[in-house]
């Protein structure tokens, strides 16, 4: 089923849309969740939550790329699960809570500056991506956005693991230089 048909079914509130998403994208979403959570059960739970989020958010949202929308939902939810898991290990999230409370003491100016720097950094990352070849963009996003292992990248890009590792190393150095030239303190 085409993504446009799936989105149409979601707008019609037809649960066949979810079954179609499961059939078409379950492996993809689960791979992303698994990359981050490194646990099959957590990945399964994460992906199930993503189906519910898709149902709840489309409509009103009408994403241009359903697959990318699913990827982003999955990644962000997996990161949340991971953060919760870390927090639990640190003592039921108590330290996180204290940090959150202390954050209120930080002047607004700082967070505004921080937010601006964040936006500038995002813009710089997009500019950096523009400078890369198609293959290097794929490797960079594959590793640092999709969080795939070097071995998986190598297998899926028809490269040796060593070749992928060397390329990623060069890309990291290139990014460091790129950000330094734009005044980021790295």
């Amino acid at each position: 089923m085409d993504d446009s048909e799936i989105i149409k079914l979601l707008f019609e509130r037809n649960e066949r849309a979810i079954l179609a998403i499961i059939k078409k994208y379950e492996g993809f979403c689960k791979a992303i969740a698994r990359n981050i959570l490194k646990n099959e059960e957590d990945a399964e739970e994460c992906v199930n939550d993503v189906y519910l989020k898709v149902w709840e958010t489309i409509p009103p949202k009408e994403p241009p790329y359903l697959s990318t929308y699913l990827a982003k939902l999955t990644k962000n939810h997996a990161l949340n699960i991971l953060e919760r898991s870390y927090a639990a290990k640190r003592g039921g999230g108590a330290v996180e809570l204290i940090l959150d409370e202390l954050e209120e003491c930080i002047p607004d100016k700082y967070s505004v500056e921080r937010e601006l720097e964040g936006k500038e950094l995002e813009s710089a990352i997009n500019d950096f991506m523009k400078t890369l070849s198609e293959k290097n963009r794929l490797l960079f996003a594959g590793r640092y956005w999709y969080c795939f292992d070097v071995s998986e990248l190598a297998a899926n890009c028809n490269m040796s693991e060593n070749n992928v590792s060397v390329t990623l190393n060069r890309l990291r150095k290139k990014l460091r230089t790129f950000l330094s030239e734009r005044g980021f303190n790295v």
Partner: protein
Amino acid sequence: MTKKDLFNAINNMDEKYIHDAQDVYKEPQAPEVIRISKEKRQPYWKTIFATAACTAAAMFAVFVPIVRSGAIGFLAPAAGNESTASSGVVLGDSGVSESNNVVGSEIKIDLDKEKNYEVVLDSVFAYDSEENTFKRYEWGDAFASDQLLVGGKSYFKKNENGEWQIYCQELALRRFKPLELENVTIMQIKEGKEGTVILLHESLSEKLGLPNFFKTSPNEGAFELYTDKFIGDKESKTISFSSTNITVDYDTNKIKISSDRVTAF
């Protein structure tokens, strides 16, 4: 700037880069399917002569898949003895007689690529333990007291010696009567203006290979969901269920799970 700032910035990169990079994910490759039909059968029997090991399956009987013309068959185990179910695969020019239990020791099949294959079969020989004889069954034939044979497959892959081996066989049976699975649990049924959310118990959703929730349209009656995933007792390697129907009865808040198809390995 911290590493988390950098991670967040990468996380928020332009969607087009995220979309383009989806090629880094590749679906696990399904085995190539060879359908042995009357028209296409001949080219597959040309070059490679491979010895294969076969795993016959036992439910009410031991199954021996063959191609309809008798060009390929599997060595039959001793009558009714499940422990001798592993044996050789054969190709015989003279075909396979229904009265012969042993059909040979080799298979000749043109599998010249470094891939896995599925061979979809036309019919099977099955050992009927009640009548103590092998019978040819074609798809649609009644089997035992409450089933139909509806399909069969064999899966081939290369072993360490470069020989093709059958590593799995499936025969599909369809029951006349739906098989019901009992003692299943619904975690919760929440009814609202926008529909009904049904949360399945984790163990059940895992068993069915389904998500933990389903949402229905408002005022909808009982509905059915389908999964083609295997469930059942995988440990015993004997029978799994597929094509499962899940029906929710709103009057009683009960869920009924039935399967009209059973696959024997």
